[in-house]
């Protein structure tokens, strides 16, 4: 049986991710234990809230060093994905540098936070396989990752930004698959079936 862990570093609302996996028949463990994370087949790195306290909490647990060395599929969600980027304008916080993208604050005419269901334009990726064009997923965030070569899904809100990123075994979603209805469940299922 495949072992799935959710990195527990004090970020809020990780139980929703755990419940979403339960609905897919997977019992994921919450952990910040290094051995536990290293031995997992799949690692989920969730997060809501502020970049700086989240990064401090990762550092306190030594997870900032561990996460970039992981070789199994890793999925960062929302702030988790942003922390995997190189740098965030949120309090000018350095990230884990897994993705080259930088994270910026929405500064256009649009309302901030970007809250609600928005469509994604897809590039080819095993994370988003089987997802149809103009699929709607749920976003709630004030900062966004720029688009670049690692972008696998784009959303427009005032400007284009990365709705999802991928580099090697590392994946990230700005949206919340655990809150994006059936479609989100499908994306999580895709992640669970990615071969190492």
């Amino acid at each position, binding site marked *: 049986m495949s072992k799935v862990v959710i990195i527990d570093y004090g970020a809020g609302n990780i139980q*929703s991710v755990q419940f979403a996996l339960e609905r897919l028949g997977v019992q994921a463990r919450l952990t910040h234990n290094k051995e536990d994370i290293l031995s997992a087949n799949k690692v989920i790195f969730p997060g809501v809230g502020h970049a700086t306290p989240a990064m401090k909490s990762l550092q306190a647990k030594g997870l900032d060093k561990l996460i970039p060395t992981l070789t199994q599929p890793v999925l960062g969600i929302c702030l988790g994905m942003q922390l995997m980027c190189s740098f965030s304008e949120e309090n000018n916080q350095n990230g884990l540098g897994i993705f080259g993208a930088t994270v910026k604050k929405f500064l256009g005419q649009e309302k901030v*936070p970007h809250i*609600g269901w928005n469509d994604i334009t897809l590039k080819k990726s095993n994370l988003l396989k089987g997802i149809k064009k103009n699929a709607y997923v749920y976003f709630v965030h004030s900062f966004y990752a720029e688009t670049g070569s690692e972008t696998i899904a784009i959303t427009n809100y005032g400007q284009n930004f990365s709705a999802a990123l991928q580099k090697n075994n590392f994946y990230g979603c700005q949206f919340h698959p655990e809150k994006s*209805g059936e479609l989100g469940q499908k994306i999580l299922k895709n992640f669970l079936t990615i071969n190492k």
Partner: protein
Amino acid sequence: MLTKRIIPCLDIKDGRTVKGVNFKNLIDAGDPVELAALYSDQGADELVFLDISATAEKRKTFAELVNKIAQKINIPFTVGGGITSVEEARTLLLAGADKVSINSAAVRNPALITELSNAFGSQCVVVAIDAKQVDKEWVVHLVGGKEPTNLSLFDWGKQVVELGAGEILFTSMNNDGTKQGFANKALQKLSTLVNVPIIASGGAGSIQHFADTFLLGGADAALAASVFHFNEITLPNLKQELQAQGIAVRS
């Protein structure tokens, strides 16, 4: 394109869904977990659960209910009702809620908005404002509309955003329960003053009322209870009609 959200609201008392008309006359409208799952399946974009239980013991029941809802449904939901501290909010967020909504506590202790925003991010913090138009003024009311304040909807709206609110849920007490439509003029004015999403609440009676609050009121989301609870408007039908009027909704 970001779509307009339709948000069924479930008032919860002692673990059951109830709906107040003009904040009075509660009628039992069913089991919240079942109702939540039904709305989610029908295409609700989000849900709001307001706990109107009075006692601390019942509040514990609410946290347990929040946990059951999170287990069952895969769309976002906000919880509110009587939250007065970061710790109370944390309990509900850890139980699986996505956002918390505060109302009277925000007026009594505006620093709470900032504390919540610092602890969980502004995207987690909805400030609910109940206001009533008295003469020309929109006066903010507390305790489910019972207690008037000296705050104006528009000043208070601007202030809560400065303090860290990520969203405003504005209920017009004049419209609530009337089924005569949302307070679109006030909504429109509020939306020009603040740069966070606004949820319109109070007055939904027909599909056109939803269309109007998006087109005329500039609302980002519309919340309603009894029209959904008593099946007067169904979500698939509502969304189809909104789409036909050129309003972007998730289908």
